[in-house]
């Protein structure tokens, strides 16, 4: 049995709650809009520093924004 991990995030939801566009969020956390888009679509995992920055912006804990999921996968499959 191999434990595969998946990282998901709620940035899109919190961004909607705070009525921020991707560009505005990118401006606030000091990255490009493409990076925000890549993080939202789980194509890029942000660094710990950036994750804390995003969590701090939404006044939440990192684990509220980023969800670490364990998926059990059978090696034989």
């Amino acid at each position, binding site marked *: 049995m191999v434990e595969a991990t998946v990282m998901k995030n709620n940035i899109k939801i919190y961004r909607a709650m705070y009525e921020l566009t991707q560009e505005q969020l990118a401006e606030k956390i000091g990255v490009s809009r493409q990076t925000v888009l890549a993080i939202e679509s789980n194509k890029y995992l942000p*660094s710990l520093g950036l994750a804390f920055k995003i969590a701090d912006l939404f006044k939440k804990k990192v684990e509220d924004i980023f969800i670490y999921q364990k998926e059990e996968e059978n090696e034989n499959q």
Partner: protein
Amino acid sequence: MNQKKYRQIRIAIIVFMALILSIAISIDSYLLAITSIITGIMFTVIVKSRAKIRVDEREIAIREKAANLTYAIFAPTIGIGSALLILIPVTNDAFYLEALGTVLAYLSLFLIALYAISYSFLNKKYGGSNSDEK
């Protein structure tokens, strides 16, 4: 000035430089060619300093992976290529191939040495060491 505008201006500068360079080559003017290159570089530096270019961690990660991939492809290719050029029997028609192979072999060695030195330096900088854990 945003990233998009910066890219457009950079492309315009490159096109202009290429145009001037082609004219310089056609009229055999080294001075014009050098002047156009220097002017192009100067314009690019000025535009870049005025543009708000954001280099974020994702872009740095992409650069790292691209550099790694380039090294992984280029080093073996040039190494094997140079070995083949040296091993090819020398004939009168292709007497320069061995010399070319030797140059490429030294180039690949230089590349590997440079990678090893920079790896060692960065490994030390970011806390890596070969000593046992105490």
